[in-house]
């Protein structure tokens, strides 16, 4: 499978990473190298094999449905680039 420039731009947009025109070519080549490297996995017979989920069979830990944390709005927003009254500020989304 080979990735063309259009696909590189589409993937970059899905990944929300801006790419310049100069970056598209080299990125495409690198992605193709990696995809060529993983191509060999297609030769493995995986019929009837379950995807791995854990090292040892283990039941997912559960806890009571209770409030265990909270009331730390100051700490939550402390590292945000822009805030107002305990809200994160972002550019306008809806006109």
């Amino acid at each position: 499978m080979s990735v063309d420039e259009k696909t590189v731009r589409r993937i970059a947009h899905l990944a929300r990473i801006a790419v310049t025109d100069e970056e598209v070519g080299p990125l495409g080549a690198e992605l193709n190298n990696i995809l060529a490297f993983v191509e060999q996995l297609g030769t493995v017979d995986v019929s009837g094999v379950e995807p791995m989920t854990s090292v040892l069979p283990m039941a997912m830990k559960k806890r009571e449905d209770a409030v265990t944390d909270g009331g730390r709005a100051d700490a939550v927003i402390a590292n945000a680039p822009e805030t107002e009254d305990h809200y994160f500020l972002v550019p306008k989304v809806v006109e």
Partner: protein
Amino acid sequence: MSSPNELTLAEARDALKAKTLSARELTSAHLDAMAKARALNAYLLETPDRALAMADASDAKIAAGEARPLEGIPLGIKDLFCTEGVETTAGSKILKGFQPHYESAVSANLWRDGAVMLGKLNLDEFAMGSSNETSAFGNVVSPWRRKDSDAPLVPGGSSGGSAAAVAARLCLGATATDTGGSIRQPAAFTGTVGIKPTYGRCSRWGTVAFASSLDQAGPIARTVKDCAILLASMSGADARDTTCADLPVPDFEASVGRGVKGLTIGIPKEYRVDGMPAEIQKLWDEGAAWLKAAGATIKEISLPHTSYALPAYYIVAPAEASSNLARYDGVRYGLRVPGKDIAAMYENTRAAGFGREVKRRIMIGTYVLSAGYYDAYYVRAQKIRTLIKRDFEAAYADGVDAILTPATPSSAFGIGEKANADPVEMYLNDVFTVTVNMAGLPGIAVPAGLDSQGLPLGLQLIGRPFDEETLFAAAQVIEDSAGRTQLPAAWWA
């Protein structure tokens, strides 16, 4: 007497207990060594005030007869572990200035046991790399050099700062993380010991996530025993990480002297890869001979799916990374670069904040998870993981107690030597270590000798799930047989 930073962690612990050394003296010796070693760029941030305050608190505890297991032991913390009130960057510009309001489970366990924080250690950006050359804050220079050369070498990665700091005696031990080999490969490159415990042995809570089904924390230290002491403190159940095992932590230190009499050590034939240097094959044979001389039975085994581990890793790890790193969007923390609308703000922020290797892996991950490809790539890779895990299970069911392999396909290379190489060539560094992450097993790298260039080479032991004790026992036999690696003189100071 040599400077206290030359002691092993166990020796320092004994000296503190015997009151022949104070925690303040021990910490000060390290802070002095760190100040002289800035050319290595191992520490991204030194925290001397905090270190001295913690050391003084330790001296008070010792005086009161209330010393805890790691009382007064100065450690470096890989900058992937969140430390409350202390900048945590993951080696990325996108987290520059980030001050966590919480402490990672692993580092909190170390402070609970009385350890002293010296500072935060450099790493590959988001732990993605095998040479520490992807850090946004500069390369780490290995304390090792080739014979008759002063060309700077890489310390390995991603825990390059951890390995370099331990080898250069800039801490008694360090925390590290291992997603595909990031503890064991740098340990092998720097003549230090590093263990990646079983997936689930250490809590991942508060550690910056790379690939959640593979990431595991562990220590790097100068001896097997020091690693055992550190892992005992780092490990343990944690309700905040659902993948962290609810298992008691064994007395790892007690297992160190247990020996290998009666154990069966497997030698997997698939690890004899094409183009493997003769020196590495020789070292591997030597390691098997040492274990045999100590009473183990050596048995050739087959792990038939070995060659698929690395390509499968390069689907699973980037896929999980692309999901985990979606959180860096310029809204809640870290860098923000404005744009004409919110989508442009996200795209500009991530374009400016992430380095090349991180972008490449996010893109690969996004591609393999995108509509129509999920089953063909991610699900298939996870099925191949099951096959890799079954290979190991079959060997263990057949009576093998641990598996011996080389740790890396070569010794350390020069900084910039692989700059123009294909990314896949760099990925091949992890060919012997990545299988262990894919199967979730414990693996330890232990120094076994020097190559003809005078650089350290390591061997790896792979164990049964949650049987790190056998690895410590067998690694100690290798350490005793090979002799402790003579670390390089401090040319940087």
